[in-house]
């Protein structure tokens, strides 16, 4: 029972079905791992030991009576941005430090209905605004590969928890790279699905035209299992798409011979660490050995994706976060004399600096006299960036490149200058602006730290992305590397 944490989700399911171990063994083991290791990582905001153990008993009963569901008994964690009925949901903010939602997010409900066991809620950048997990009200998260380094963000707690084998897999959200960047920096497979593929209902909104829920797992096969259960049309989300969910677990087994991959020329420029670039090239060589073809392509406007994002995302955030007024939920300032002061003080006390900065940026770009120059302009440039991808997909099946410019950086290293931090998402933001599915998978080692290869597909090509990643993982072992202290 000592090595249960090293099993993939599919191996866990296999072991449960064969009764090699019980759900209770699995859950107890992971709770023990969290107790032992999380003090050094801070990846969890809330651990749900008692409910998880009770759910484990119920899941064992289902295995015993033959009514086990698709993902029965798998221990997973949810990013603390997903509302969980009766369980505190903080979004990494003082604003919601004691918020207990009366309902579940659809993602939480779908996975619950598939039988997964929620072990806890993971730490994150406040309201998902950050790329290093340093904006959380609940403290920095450390990278399991090296304490003192950032696990990336905003889904940094999810990434650290899965990479440290504290939990089998975790959910995340990705507005500009918040699943893929932490996945790359911690050696995981991270999937941001097509905009509208996974319901956003009950997922606390940051930038509604960009936000999408996805997975952080230790393999593409695990991602296929989880994504299958999470995805699908949801009448409760007006941006949910009525596209049937494909059978990802079947799709990943296909050969990739003849698949055309377009390596983005603009991603190979100055900012990219040379060892990181070598890892990406080596991974592409492996894909060529598997029958794929690689050619260089150009996304001429992709360099504008970060400034475009930092107009669109703050604009949407300033609107979305206006709901936090201290009245119906969230932090409420005390000893106020009038309503205006209640709003102002509740918000100023409840939000951290980065969130305030984005609300102010968004307020600025939407304000009278500046709307055309910033917001409308950014929406036009967004169209150009999206058209670049459409052009690329006339030549190739998937767009590929690095996920991040460098491996994990130090906590505190980039906090003085917001723009330096923002540039960490330079390769990931384009897929959000264009609404496309994208995946990061571990593809090498730079100075003992993992780096990621990013694949971007056409809308609804999740199965194809998972297929390429799974075929790559069948012949390589980067995805099986574990940080030494947590192996």
């Amino acid at each position: 029972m000592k090595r249960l944490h090293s099993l993939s989700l599919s191996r866990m399911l296999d072991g449960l079905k064969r009764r090699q171990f019980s759900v209770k063994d699995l859950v107890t083991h992971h709770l023990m791992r969290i107790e032992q290791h999380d003090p050094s990582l801070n990846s969890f905001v809330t651990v749900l030991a008692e409910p998880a153990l009770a759910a484990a008993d119920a899941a064992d009963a289902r295995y015993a009576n033959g009514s086990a569901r698709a993902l029965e008994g798998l221990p997973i964690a949810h990013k603390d941005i997903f509302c969980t009925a009766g369980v505190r949901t903080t979004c990494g903010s003082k604003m919601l430090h004691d918020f207990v939602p009366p309902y579940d997010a659809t993602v939480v409900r779908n996975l619950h209905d598939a039988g997964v066991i929620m072990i806890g809620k993971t730490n994150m950048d406040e309201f998902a605004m950050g790329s290093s997990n340093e904006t959380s009200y609940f403290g920095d998260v450390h990278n399991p590969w090296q304490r003192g380094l950032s696990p990336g963000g905003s889904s940094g707690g999810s990434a650290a928890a899965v990479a440290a084998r504290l939990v089998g897999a975790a959910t995340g959200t990705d507005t500009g790279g918040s699943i893929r960047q932490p996945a790359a920096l911690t050696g995981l497979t991270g999937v941001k699905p097509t905009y509208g593929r996974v319901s956003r209902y009950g997922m606390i909104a940051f930038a509604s035209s960009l936000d999408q829920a996805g997975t952080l797992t230790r393999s593409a096969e695990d991602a296929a299992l989880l994504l299958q259960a999470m995805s699908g049309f949801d009448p409760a989300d007006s941006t949910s798409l009525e596209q049937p969910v494909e059978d990802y677990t079947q799709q990943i087994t296909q050969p990739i011979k003849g698949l055309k991959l377009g390596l983005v020329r603009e991603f190979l420029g100055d900012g990219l660490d040379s060892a990181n670039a070598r890892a990406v090239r080596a991974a592409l060589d492996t894909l060529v050995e598997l029958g794929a073809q690689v050619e260089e392509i150009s996304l001429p406007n992709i360099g504008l994706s970060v400034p475009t994002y930092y107009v669109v995302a703050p604009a949407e955030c300033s609107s979305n976060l206006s709901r936090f007024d201290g009245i119906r939920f969230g932090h409420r300032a005390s000893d106020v004399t009038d309503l205006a002061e209640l709003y102002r003080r509740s918000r100023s006390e409840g939000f951290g600096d980065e969130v305030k900065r984005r609300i102010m940026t968004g307020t600025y770009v939407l304000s009278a006299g500046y709307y055309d120059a910033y917001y409308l302009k950014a929406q036009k440039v967004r169209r150009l960036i999206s058209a670049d991808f459409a052009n690329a997909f006339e030549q190739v099946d998937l767009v590929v490149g690095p996920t991040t410019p460098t491996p994990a950086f130090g906590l505190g290293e980039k906090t003085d200058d917001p723009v330096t931090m923002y540039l960490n998402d330079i390769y990931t933001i384009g897929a959000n602006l264009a609404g496309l599915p994208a995946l990061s998978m571990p593809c090498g080692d730079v100075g003992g730290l993992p780096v990621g290869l990013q694949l971007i597909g056409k809308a609804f090509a999740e199965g194809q992305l998972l297929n390429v990643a799974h075929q790559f993982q069948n012949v390589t072992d980067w995805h099986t590397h574990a940080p030494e202290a947590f192996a």
Partner: protein
Amino acid sequence: MAITSDDIDKLAVLARLEFASSEHEQFTEKLASVVAFVDQLADVETDDVTPMAHPLDMHQRLRPDTEDADIDREALQSTTEHTADGLYVVPRVIE
């Protein structure tokens, strides 16, 4: 367009935020660097480009106008202590 300390005061009113005088200077400086960074968009030629409102150019779906769930007022109001008789309590607005 450079952000000034006066701009911060005006935006703070619009955003219903307030800043202590000790954090004013640093906040102005950081916001100014963000705005200076996004200013590069001004140089992009976009005269004939239609703004993109939805990443997949889809329109908002409307649901049929039928009753489909009860709203549990008590559960929804459990997220604050400041309620009375099913209403939210705020500081007096009308004297």
